[in-house]
């Protein structure tokens, strides 16, 4: 399950992920919602794969991996993660206007709260990695590089999927971002 804020490139990232999984030989389904929700709101994209997939949506509370493009959204979708699931979370924070006009401020201790849930939490400084790669819009590709450690998919499949997914103009920078972020996000062995 990929979650974040409208405009962060979540739908495109889930497209790339699906391409990877199809190339790796899985049955794949995905479901996301377009339209009103995309205007800066909370966005969710469900991706499922396996021998045979029926429901395109992840059953409530049954996500194996939550990929959060933003900290608050990770916390919001925490109930969707399985008991022993994993969270891959970008350390980026996008503060909604409601945090200063509404009753609740932006929570301070999100990463700690995620870790307290007994889940495997993989923190990714996606924005910093994207800046290193030379384009802040590659943050979603950097997050995908972290995801690659959690899926048993060969490197050349990722290569091919990225090549197919990005138009030539931005292909090079996304390849650079992926390679750089894959190096930088290798989780400790005991956790992988």
């Amino acid at each position, binding site marked *: 399950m990929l979650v974040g*804020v409208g405009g962060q490139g979540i739908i495109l990232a889930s497209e790339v992920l699906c391409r990877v999984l199809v190339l790796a030989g899985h*049955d794949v389904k*995905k479901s996301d919602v377009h*339209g009103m929700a995309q205007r800066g709101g909370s966005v969710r994209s469900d991706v499922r794969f396996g021998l045979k997939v029926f429901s395109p949506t992840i*059953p*409530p509370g049954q996500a194996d991996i939550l990929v959060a493009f933003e900290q608050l959204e990770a916390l919001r979708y925490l109930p969707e993660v399985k008991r022993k699931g994993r969270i891959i979370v970008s350390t980026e924070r996008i503060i909604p206007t409601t945090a200063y006009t509404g009753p*609740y401020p932006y*929570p301070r201790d999100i990463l700690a709260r995620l870790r307290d849930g007994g889940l495997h939490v993989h923190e990714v400084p996606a924005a910093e990695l994207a800046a290193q790669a030379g384009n802040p819009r590659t943050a979603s590709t950097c997050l995908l590089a972290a995801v690659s450690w959690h899926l048993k998919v060969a490197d050349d499949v990722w290569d091919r999927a990225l090549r197919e997914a990005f138009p030539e103009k931005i292909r090079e920078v996304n390849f650079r971002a992926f390679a750089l972020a894959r190096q930088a996000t290798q989780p400790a062995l005991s956790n992988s």
Partner: protein
Amino acid sequence: MLLSGNEAIARGAYEAGVRLAASYPGTPSTEILETIAAQTDIPCEWSPNEKVALEVAFGAALGGARALASMKHVGLNVAADPLMTISYTGINGGLVIVSADDPGMHSSQNEQDNRHYARFAKVPMLEPSDSQECKDFTLEGFAISEKYDTPVLLRTTTRVSHGKSLVSLGEPLSLEPRGFVRDQPKYVMIPGHARLRHVVVEERLIGLRDLANATPLNRVEPGDTSVGIITSGGAYQYVKETCPEASVLKLGMPYPFPDRVVRHFAASVDRLFVVEELDPFLEDQVRALGIQVIGKERFSALGELDPVAVAAGIYGSKRRPKRRAQPDGLPARPPVMCPGCPHRGVFHVLRKLKVIATGDIGCYTLSVLPPLQMMDTCVCMGASVGSAHGLEKALGDASNIVGIIGDSTFVHSGIAPLIDIVYNKGTSTIIILDNRTTAMTGHQDHPATGRTARGEQTFRLNLEALCRACGVEDVRIVDPYDLEATEENIKAALANRAPSVIIADRPCPLMDRSSWGEPLAVEEEFCAACGACFRLGCPAISIGGAGPKGRRKARIVAEICAACGLCVQICPKEAIKPASVMKR
């Protein structure tokens, strides 16, 4: 190939040899016509509204071409008028109408169940459950349409239309054009002709029922006979996911209701369930056969189903897995108007003027959310204009009433009620938020953009001249980035004891990022932390450093600032300036 249901329907139209596709954009149906426009050579059109789309598709079918009309569920309400009578006339070339329903109302004002339209209009309905079926059923729909001389309804839901799954592609059919054949008793529905056609419709239903009983689209998937489940559409996937052992009757063609298949299936199982989203459409028809069934008492008629809800409905709540509690006290993240949105300035002024605002369908409907909260109604396309007039009649005065409608929505359904205001001596003020696109559904063109569905130049409908032709003499054009001019003009229009139209003219900035000016910045030492700019609800205005009395100063996120300048005009301390000016 991994395709969305909508892409698969477009592919199905291509393989079926469709020669005309017409649509009005609406979530979750929009991508059908977008894909046809982008990836095929099928002649295709954005229509001003769904009624026109269906009438154009009908005309093409009359001319012997296969034709497709696609729309969201509420769009079929608009197109219901032609639908009811095209059912009587029948077609010539195949005609498939796609209704994309939105259970859960992800992007809609209601969650009506359009399966009722099949029964209402007495036309066959197909209900795909994944993308492969979206493509296959589109082809099947055209075959049924031509064989039985009827329009066919293809009904999807958000998860089917927007869900992606694997599809194997086929080759396009090459069809001989049939041409137009004059047949006045069939196509001219005067009462004398229509009475005879109604007989044909009823006989056709009998034939279609036989088809529904025989077609492989309605199939039994045998399993454990202690539990039997009748299901269709997206709900089928949830059933297969959570009840792999059960016997299942999958209805790909749920109308006309396949009575013999259902009787046979019901007799073969111990306990019979119907699993369907929204209304008890199948369930009622099972009961009408005198068969006992468990349905809506276990499965909600509200919103979407999901695999867990289906399992709990069949096997009881013990099957419901434990779930973490939702963390308390999280700030909501509702969709908001984008940075630089030209609607924002208009709503800021309206809030200041404390008017009653009848609203409409589009991005601007978001103005009802905090902090603007400046919209008092939202019902359906065009309703802002007519209801402003009715409100004036009830209150006896329109000096405090504004109807707000977007450009695409105005062309869709706002013109007739504007004529009504003039005709019936109203004095309302209507604001057309002309951002020169159908923005909410992802920037589709319409008659007032001057571009076709494939981006070709065409005649651009002149909204100002149109309003004047309707009899509105007081038509004003303002730039909604100019708050002072916007306020002056709205005040003058409200004071005018005659109908007024204000066209707030500014393209949606998302269409052309290169038009954005230099990002703005807050000079913190001048910022009094008064919060005035926060109340614009601009996502580019974030919290900065500490101010007096625990308040926070403003900070502008340069990467997303469109430099519309509204905050500059609002700031009482003149603390907001272009970043380069500030550095000096």
